[in-house]
């Protein structure tokens, strides 16, 4: 409906400065609430804008005149547009000014038509306020319907439509129009249009409302336009773009046409090139919200299908309901789908302030889409009048966890009850330990015998789960799990209980052990708790106090209290070594075992010896201790014991002699067991004598190089596990924590059951930790190991502070019988032929020759007697191999010095055979270029072998071998200065890691004695002994004999 062209606007002149002076509501109060109504009628061509009419529904002409006065408009009552009543007629812009004065209209009783206009005026004001407007222009002679469609067409086609009929240019007028960039703004607009379509006087006249919004937007926008002081500055920053001829002029004209703010029309025109104008318009419309969706009346643009999950009514079957509904995307309007089917009419659906026309056209297919991703929706959709469906309690979890995310992803709205998603920190598992049972069912391997507290004792306990303020008994919680109903209602809200996490924790100490929960199980569960776990609060009754004390001590095992050290210990323990001894003693008190896994060289041996001595001095040992080690370390253990703890009585259960019986028919072992403190044996002997050794009630069983029992299926592992012991200790220098299955085997030896069964461990830890080395399971395992695994690394800053920059370790090997025989024959030969005069040159020569041969025999008998350089023939070589293996396993590198060229070759052969790579060998026979290359390759790191063999003399030539942090002196130059030089020259300044120097010594031989001699007067040695080994020749015969003598008992390392 267009405005009546007869309406005159001449009398409007001069009213522009009049301001509305009244509040309409107040005026209406005195007029019996007579409603004010009005419309805007668009007028073609669009530059005329249109006319607004105001009238009173049911009021008199006099009242209308009064209203005109109140509003400050000069219009007189005249025939209105709907023959309903006389009306005031106002030019478009003045009508816009009037209706956008919200103070004036507040609470005024208005007719529905005017209400729509007021809302549109308000929307225009919001759009301008948010700068959601853009400049527009159209041909002056076009009608409104044509013009209103134009922005959407231009924006969508992203192109230009050119008028062909009358030349390249035409008259245009400019206007500021909505840009619709704010989505909720266009939603509001559609809601208004939907309402208007329901009003008979506005229905079919939507273009007038569109025009009205434009007029309002334009007028309010123009009044807000300013000249920015920064125009030049900003335009200077404009990106370069091609300017067309006439473009500047067009823009200037267009701009000028947008700044006129007079209240009367028509809009002023300007001449513009069609093509250029369309191009500029397209630029302005880019990124605007103009499009076909703007004119959607079905609701599809603003509404979406949603689903609401409604909890069961308390005390009923526990069935939930999934209800379909339509939800407005921007506003809080929604309606259940049930209402749609309950209304007889299909044409429109009113929800909130909105009217949706034939919405089933889009929501039915949407429901079908939802049904594809959610079975519950599919179920809903097969029922006539689809609106809702029942969801079993058991299905809720799946719905929430799997289907709801898919629905959300597919663009549906989903409403779930106000679930306080319970934070794990708000959940507690409360365990109440009532009693510790005296006896435990038989059948399970016991780790401890008669210790003060049996960790395998079963506990009686009760547990409950606290979720926020709600407390669930174990029965209630189990019902929750059984019914897959992870929700509890608390204070009007539903809480989703993290059942899985709770269950996992509870199963830690309720499952796995069918016979019942032991203190051990409980301890394990409490210990491994992570910050991310559900906390377990354990409380104890008075009867369960021992269990409480056990748990507390276990938690503190890592920081054991200091105790007196054994008096009989001949040596000095470093602080970390003392700590290790205290730790072992603490575990002893707790009745559990431990794994001491310090890096090699940190002194695991003396910590254990100190510990055993301490037990002896305090009368704690209930029997002999059994020490099991690899054959190559037997001599070392014996030597260390003699040196540091001579008070410990030792029996070595090894070699043929062990089979003897005494006159009473007792075995050597049974006799020894009654008298000695420590029985030392090898893994190989253990396997052979497994039955016999298993008869003994050992106090402590120590397994050195515990990687020997890492494979549970081996005989030695089985034999070790068969041993009865009060406490078990494992020693290892390899990084066990990275090899989880080995770790399990070792820990299961020291504390059977602590890490669960093997398959449980694999599932629970091996898999997850391997996949996520920094993950929660890795942290859990670490915490679990904290009390029972002590591992210090040389690189730990606190340890480094205690270590010298370069420190020496003496590693003692035994002689094989072949070696011992050769050794003895050389010594015998020397005594037979040795001239007695000290000054005799031949005497010196013989001594030095014998010295060399004896050294060679200690190294490897083939150096003297020929034959193959097998490992088995040399105790020292086997020891070297074991030591190198440790270095290699820790990812470190080492240098091996020998003074015998041939020995170097043998070492290379043996390493190649054992590890699959052959180390470089740096000796005097190499050309300088070859040496340099060898050194460079070694320094380059992996994949070059981590070991380099050097001849002692070749080693001193300004080499840079900083990759290595271990130096092995395979044989000794009985002059510390020479050895030191070799070591020091090899290690240049800049070596950051601590260097560990291993001096390999054969026990019971001159190697051991000279080593002690030198150690005793080390500070003298450099001055006294000079550069050579000549000082030895100066010794008196008796001294010499003592020095060279073979102590068969300590030297011989028999193959058990």
């Amino acid at each position, binding site marked *: 409906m267009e405005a009546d062209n007869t309406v005159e606007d001449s009398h409007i002149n001069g009213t522009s400065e009049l301001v509305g002076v009244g509040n309409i*509501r107040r005026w209406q109060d005195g007029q019996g609430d007579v409603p004010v109504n009005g419309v805007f009628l668009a007028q073609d061509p669009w530059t005329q804008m249109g006319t607004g009419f105001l009238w009173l529904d049911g009021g008199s002409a006099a009242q209308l005149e009064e209203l005109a006065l109140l509003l400050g408009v000069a219009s007189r009552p005249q025939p209105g547009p709907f023959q309903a009543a006389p009306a005031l007629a106002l030019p478009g812009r003045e009508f816009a000014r009037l209706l956008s004065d*919200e103070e004036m*209209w*507040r*609470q*005024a*009783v*208005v007719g*529905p038509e*005017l*209400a729509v206009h*007021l*809302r549109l005026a*308000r*929307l225009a*004001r*919001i759009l*301008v*306020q*948010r*700068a959601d407007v*853009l*400049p527009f222009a159209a041909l002056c002679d076009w009608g409104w319907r044509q013009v209103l469609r134009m922005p959407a067409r231009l924006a969508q086609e992203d192109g230009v439509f050119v008028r062909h009929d009358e030349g390249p240019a035409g008259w245009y007028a400019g206007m500021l129009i909505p840009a619709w960039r704010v*989505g909720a*703004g266009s*939603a*509001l607009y559609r*809601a208004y249009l939907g309402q208007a379509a*329901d*009003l008979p006087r506005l229905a079919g006249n939507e273009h007038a409302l569109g025009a009205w919004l434009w007029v309002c937007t334009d007028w309010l*926008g123009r009044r*807000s*336009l*300013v000249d920015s002081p920064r*125009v030049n500055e*900003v335009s200077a920053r404009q990106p370069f773009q091609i300017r067309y001829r006439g473009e500047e002029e067009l823009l200037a004209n*267009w*701009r000028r046409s947008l700044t006129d703010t007079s209240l009367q029309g028509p809009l002023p025109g300007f001449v513009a090139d069609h093509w250029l104008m369309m191009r*500029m318009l397209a*630029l*302005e419309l880019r990124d605007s919200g103009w499009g076909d969706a703007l004119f959607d009346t079905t609701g599809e643009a603003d509404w979406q299908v949603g689903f609401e999950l409604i909890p069961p009514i308390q005390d009923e079957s526990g069935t939930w309901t999934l209800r379909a509904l339509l939800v407005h995307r*921007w*506003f*809080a309007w929604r309606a259940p789908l049930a209402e749609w*089917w*309950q*209304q*007889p009419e*299909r044409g429109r659906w009113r929800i909130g*302030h909105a009217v949706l026309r*034939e919405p*089933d*056209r889009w929501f*039915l*297919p949407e429901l079908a889409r939802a049904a*594809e991703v959610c079975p519950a929706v599919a179920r809903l*959709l*097969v029922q*006539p*009048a689809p609106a809702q469906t029942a969801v079993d309690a058991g299905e809720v979890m799946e719905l929430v966890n799997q289907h709801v995310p898919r629905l959300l992803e597919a663009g549906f709205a989903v409403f779930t009850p106000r679930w306080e998603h319970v934070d794990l920190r708000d959940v507690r598992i409360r365990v109440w330990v009532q009693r510790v049972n005296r006896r435990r069912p038989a059948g399970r391997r016991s780790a401890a015998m008669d210790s003060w507290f049996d960790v395998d004792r079963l506990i009686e306990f009760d547990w409950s789960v606290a979720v926020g303020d709600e407390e669930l008994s174990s029965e209630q919680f189990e019902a929750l799990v059984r019914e897959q109903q992870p929700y509890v209602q608390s204070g009007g809200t539903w809480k989703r209980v993290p059942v899985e996490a709770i269950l996992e924790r509870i199963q830690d100490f309720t499952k796995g052990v069918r016979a019942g929960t032991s203190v051990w199980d409980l301890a394990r569960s409490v210990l491994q708790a992570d910050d991310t776990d559900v906390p377990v609060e354990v409380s104890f009754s008075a009867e369960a106090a021992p269990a409480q004390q056990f748990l507390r001590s276990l938690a503190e095992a890592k920081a054991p209290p200091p105790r007196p050290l054994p008096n009989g210990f001949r040596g000095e323990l470093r602080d970390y070594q003392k700590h290790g001894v205290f730790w072992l003693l603490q575990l002893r008190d707790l009745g559990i075992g431990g794994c001491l896994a310090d890096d090699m060289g940190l002194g695991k041996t003396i910590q254990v010896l100190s510990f055993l001595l301490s037990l002896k001095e305090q009368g704690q040992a209930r029997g002999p201790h059994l020490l099991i080690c690899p054959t190559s370390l037997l001599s070392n253990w014996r030597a260390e014991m003699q040196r540091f703890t001579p008070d410990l009585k030792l029996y070595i259960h090894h070699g043929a002699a062990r089979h003897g019986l005494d006159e009473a028919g007792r075995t050597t072992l049974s006799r020894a067991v009654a008298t000695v403190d420590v029985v030392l044996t090898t893994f190989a002997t253990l396997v052979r004598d497994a039955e016999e050794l298993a008869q003994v009630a050992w106090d402590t069983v120590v397994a050195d190089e515990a990687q020997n029992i890492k494979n549970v299926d081996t005989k030695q592992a089985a034999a070790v596990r068969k041993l009865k012991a009060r406490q078990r200790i494992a020693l290892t220098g390899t990084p066990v924590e990275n090899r989880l299955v080995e770790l399990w085997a070792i820990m299961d030896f020291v504390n059977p059951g602590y890490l669960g069964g093997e398959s449980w461990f694999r599932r629970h830890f091996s898999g997850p930790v391997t996949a996520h080395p920094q993950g929660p399971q890795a942290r859990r395992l670490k915490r679990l190991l904290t009390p029972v695994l002590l591992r210090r690394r040389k690189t730990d800053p606190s340890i480094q502070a205690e270590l010298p920059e370069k420190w020496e370790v003496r590693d003692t090997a035994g002689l094989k019988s072949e070696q011992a025989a050769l050794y003895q024959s050389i010594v015998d030969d020397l005594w037979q032929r040795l001239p007695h005069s000290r000054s005799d040159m031949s005497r010196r020569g013989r001594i030095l020759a014998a010295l060399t041969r004896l050294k060679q025999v200690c190294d490897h008998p083939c150096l003297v007697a020929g034959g193959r350089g097998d490992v088995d023939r040399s105790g020292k070589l086997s020891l070297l191999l074991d030591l190198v293996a440790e270095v290699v396993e820790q990812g470190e590198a080492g240098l091996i010095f020998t003074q015998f060229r041939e020995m170097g070759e043998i070492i290379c052969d043996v390493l190649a055979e054992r590890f699959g790579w052959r180390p470089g060998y740096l000796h005097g026979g190499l050309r300088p270029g070859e040496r340099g290359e060898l050194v460079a390759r070694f320094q380059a790191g992996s994949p070059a072998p981590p070991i380099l063999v050097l001849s002692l003399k070749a080693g001193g030539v300004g080499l840079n071998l900083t990759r290595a942090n271990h130096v092995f002196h395979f044989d000794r130059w009985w002059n510390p200065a020479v050895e030191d030089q070799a070591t020091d020259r090899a290690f240049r300044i800049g070596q950051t890691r601590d260097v560990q120097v291993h001096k390999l010594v054969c026990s019971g031989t001159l190697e051991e004695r000279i080593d002690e001699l030198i150690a005793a007067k080390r500070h003298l040695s450099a001055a006294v002994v000079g550069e050579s080994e000549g000082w030895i020749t100066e010794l008196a015969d008796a001294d010499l004999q003592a020095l060279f003598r073979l102590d068969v008992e300590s030297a011989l390392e028999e193959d058990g």
Partner: protein
Amino acid sequence: MVNRSSPPEKEPQPAGAAVRFDETCWQPVWAVADKAVLRRAKALAVDGVLDWRYEPGMVAARVRGYGPIPEYEVRFPLVDNWQPHAERVADWFSRHPDWLAGLMAGNLPFVFLQRLHSAGMALWPDDAYVARFRAGASCTCRGSSSCAHVLAAALAWVRELAEEPVELLASVGLDVGRTLDEVHRLTYERLSGSGAVDAGIQDSAQAVARPWQPWPEEERVQVSGDESGCRRTEDSVMLSRNLSLYLRTPWGPV
């Protein structure tokens, strides 16, 4: 009516299975066409089909020509006429809303297709239709009845159906709006028969004069997406770079 419709030739499907409608449903028609002609038709279908409309039992389309003939007039028969079954179809849909919803989404439940089959109704071509198509299709190019123009028109039309699957109903002679109306009416009646309908749910309270006040939704538009909240600057904003138009913003409170 001759039984000539059959569900797609697939194995019996589990419950919930559906067939997506797209141009492959018309494979029987494409399959018998000459390969070269079909290739040309596919190219032409992209933008050569100017418009189409329904005529009784037919689709009529205009297809772009070349040379002296600017366009061709094409006709081909509809797959089926459901007009006689309109009531039954509305009844089906009111009892099985998933059938209707599926059809409108272009994803037709298999059970629905089976029901159509047993009722002798079709939504897309079978062999009998192919024969009718060949016999009944026509083109002003005076070529054969399966010239590229006919095929192009059919292709373009089928593609539009796939875009707007609810129009499948129109493609078998039903009025979409009237069908939906009827489904709704039947559903409503069944509900009200069961007493499930609230009385007096209708309103037209709109037409009453009432005190005017802002909607809360309008406030929402005012602030939506405005992270800076009340900390607004008095700086002007650039409205149009080309025109160097600046808007003083904001005004005071609305």
